[in-house]
């Protein structure tokens, strides 16, 4: 879908203001950033987190009374997929030292480290190994490693400022101090970071950074990290087994309340099986596919909050889930690419964000929540009403990518953003010559399961790492800190789980008693009788067809 005529006329306005904007950028004359005290009113009035009626208190479980998005509460107030009475726990189908649930970045890093520390590892994952949000990350990974201008001290400050100073200090400390080593680990495994001739890593700014510490591998940083560590995991077939299309649906505890494994569900045969393990690492990632408030999302197909649901039932509290991250720049047009992320690196490289008049209205490197709220304000009729109307009846704003070639030389967009260049070219748009139409999109689960700095939850033997955990990023994550989080805490969780597994010896009698109790609590509270969780996969199939799938829940020779 090339831009239609109506839109081309609007692009001319952008082109008119472009030369002067490029000149200002060259002189480092930026659009003024909001002062700390100016951020609050914009957030309160325009950030989706603050819209009334979109949250409610959870009625049961370890974080009872905590108010979070309706979509997440729906899943927490739901029955198990399995009837505990029907599951045979006497004969495990799999036995291992460490069970890793979810094979994205955190899970894979954890598996490698657990294996290196002598544990036999089973990875159970919902889709294929690497079908994960980690694969989709584009922009980069932070680490304060530029000696002489940056340090963990400034990294720490930036993270707290971005997270509204609510972050867990120990977790932030752990992440920033381990960041350089995490990068070095990836470099040693052969991840191709963009470098200068002498091996110095190229780094750039991201929203909310005070130093250029965003390392990248062109515009496919996450894919490069994911495919590299996945490949490394495949070099350890003696220690690491992977079962794909077998999501976990329930944690199993032993009679002493320690973790004893998980129930897996074979998506293809419909079987449930018991994987027995003395330590379990939950690395199931985020929840964009819940489409909170009907937002489009950047997340992969399997981002449905399963890990939160399972661990919560097993007694792990949650925090920071009251804030959700909307990425400021998702595609709104063409419709086929709706929701797809346009990395912050475009703004880092100099592209302005513009309204329908081709005018700037926001500094491009505000923290994400502030940037997103400002864009929503510009588009919303309740705000300034300066959005660009799309042919599909939505509103967006311009991201002026052609500026990048003007600032950094012809061909830069093609070289630095090959992935997005191809994507738009398929639809007849050349982003080195034409700007992109964007709008905020549901992106990241800021909070999650409570962990400490060794990734332990309150359940002995149960660990969590990556996007499924909460606290590190406080109320808002900065770009590049999540890839870092999954590598740092994935590695920590792997090593810790292996050590625990070795130290703990025999586990006790496995049970799903906690699931039975949870089901009863639901009944007492009078909620969730008609819902089942975890969700596993979103259903985008045609409702008209679904209505005719009459035998979906029948028992018999066909289901």
């Amino acid at each position: 879908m090339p831009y239609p005529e109506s839109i081309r006329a609007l692009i001319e306005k952008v082109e008119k203001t472009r030369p002067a904007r490029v000149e200002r950028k060259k002189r480092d004359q930026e659009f003024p950033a909001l002062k700390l005290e100016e951020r609050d009113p914009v957030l309160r009035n325009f950030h989706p987190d603050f819209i009334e009626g979109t949250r409610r208190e959870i009625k049961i479980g370890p974080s009872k009374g905590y108010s979070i998005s309706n979509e997440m509460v729906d899943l927490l107030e739901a029955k198990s997929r399995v009837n505990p009475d029907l599951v045979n726990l006497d004969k495990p189908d799999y036995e291992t030292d460490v069970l890793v649930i979810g094979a994205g970045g955190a899970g894979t890093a954890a598996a490698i480290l657990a294996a290196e520390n002598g544990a036999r590892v089973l990875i159970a994952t919902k889709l294929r190994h690497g079908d994960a949000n980690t694969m989709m990350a584009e922009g980069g990974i932070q680490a304060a490693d530029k000696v002489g201008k940056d340090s963990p001290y400034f990294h720490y400050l930036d993270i707290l400022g971005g997270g509204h100073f609510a972050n867990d200090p120990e977790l932030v400390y752990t992440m920033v101090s381990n960041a350089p080593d995490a990068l070095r680990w990836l470099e040693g495994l052969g991840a191709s970071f963009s470098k200068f001739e002498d091996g110095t890593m190229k780094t750039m700014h991201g929203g909310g950074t005070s130093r250029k510490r965003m390392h990248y591998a062109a515009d496919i940083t996450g894919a490069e990290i994911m495919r590299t560590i996945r490949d490394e995991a495949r070099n350890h077939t003696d220690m690491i087994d992977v079962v794909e299309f077998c999501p976990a649906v329930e944690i199993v505890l032993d009679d002493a309340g320690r973790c004893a494994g998980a129930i897996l569900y074979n998506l293809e045969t419909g079987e449930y099986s018991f994987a027995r393990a003395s330590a379990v690492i939950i690395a199931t990632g985020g929840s964009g596919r819940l489409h909170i408030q009907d937002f489009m999302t950047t997340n992969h197909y399997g981002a449905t909050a399963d890990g939160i649901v399972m661990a919560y039932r097993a007694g792990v509290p949650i925090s920071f889930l009251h804030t959700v991250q909307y990425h400021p720049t998702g595609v709104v047009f063409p419709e086929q690419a709706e929701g797809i992320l346009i990395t912050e690196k475009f703004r880092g490289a100099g592209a302005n964000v513009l309204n329908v008049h081709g005018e700037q209205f926001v500094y491009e490197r505000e923290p994400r929540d502030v940037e997103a709220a400002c864009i929503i304000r510009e588009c919303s009729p309740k705000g300034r009403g300066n959005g660009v109307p799309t042919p599909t009846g939505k509103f967006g704003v311009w991201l002026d990518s052609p500026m990048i070639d003007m600032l950094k030389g012809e061909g830069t967009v093609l070289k630095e953003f090959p992935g997005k260049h191809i994507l738009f070219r398929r639809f007849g748009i050349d982003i080195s010559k034409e700007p992109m139409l964007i709008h905020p999109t549901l992106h990241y689960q800021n909070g999650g399961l409570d962990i400490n700095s060794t990734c332990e939850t309150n359940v002995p033997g149960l660990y969590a790492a990556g996007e499924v955990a909460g606290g590190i990023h406080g109320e808002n994550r900065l770009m590049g800190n999540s890839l870092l989080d999954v590598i740092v805490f994935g590695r920590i969780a792997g090593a810790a789980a292996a050590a625990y597994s070795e130290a703990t010896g025999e586990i006790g009698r496995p049970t799903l008693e906690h699931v039975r109790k949870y089901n009863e609590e639901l009944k007492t509270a009078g909620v969730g009788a008609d819902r089942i969780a975890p969700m596993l996969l979103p259903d985008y199939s045609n409702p008209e067809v679904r209505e005719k799938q009459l035998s979906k829940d029948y028992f018999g020779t066909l289901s």
Partner: protein
Amino acid sequence: MSENAANRSVDDLVPIFFMGKRYMVPSSLTIQKALEYAGYQHVRGCGCRGGICGACGTVYRDPDSYRLQVGLACQTVVESGMHLMILPYYPGNRAEFDIDEMQGTGGEVAALYPEIFKCIGCNACTQACPMDIDVMHYMAQAIRGDIKGVAETSFDCIMCGLCASRCPAEEVQFNVAILSRRLNARHLTPRAKHLEKQVERVAAGEFEESLRELMGKSTDDLKQLYRDREAEPQMTEDDWKPQDARYV
């Protein structure tokens, strides 16, 4: 829900043939969403929905042509009358290796994948690549032992397996490619010295005191420090130095 295939006008439905079976779907949808419109809930053949994971490599044919075409189901818009199938998995050979013990020579790649020499240069792989990678070219580079070349040519590979599915010589191009990229990054590219240095400084506890001091500060003090922190300008080169060097 924005993603839901059914929430749209159905004025121009076109026929597509999914593994031979006919469905009427809106002409503006991608193959992935068209199948959902038809009633499928994908299990295999759907991963990131954004063109980077390689789960939905698709082979299709237009009605009036004998030629096979390829694309990603999440990125390719349906065409009237197309016959298609998604290839969610392709069995491919993979060699295990220990990257620490290697040097990044062409001989090492050839030893792990001796079949590269069986390539007959037919170009079927290049034609099958949905990422427009010149696959045959990187296979030729592998044969010549140009590991850096393979790494660069194959950089955008999403490991979908379509090239291997078309190869008469039974090559597993994508595994040759990732091995070469890893060797190139690890052994043929200089390591980052600043990184090594910073790892040492962290290990020596050089930042311990300043970090612990920050962790002990009140929110108001932190806010003040945050406001006052010096920002590296956008357009500077890598050798920029802050005025206040106390904490670096």
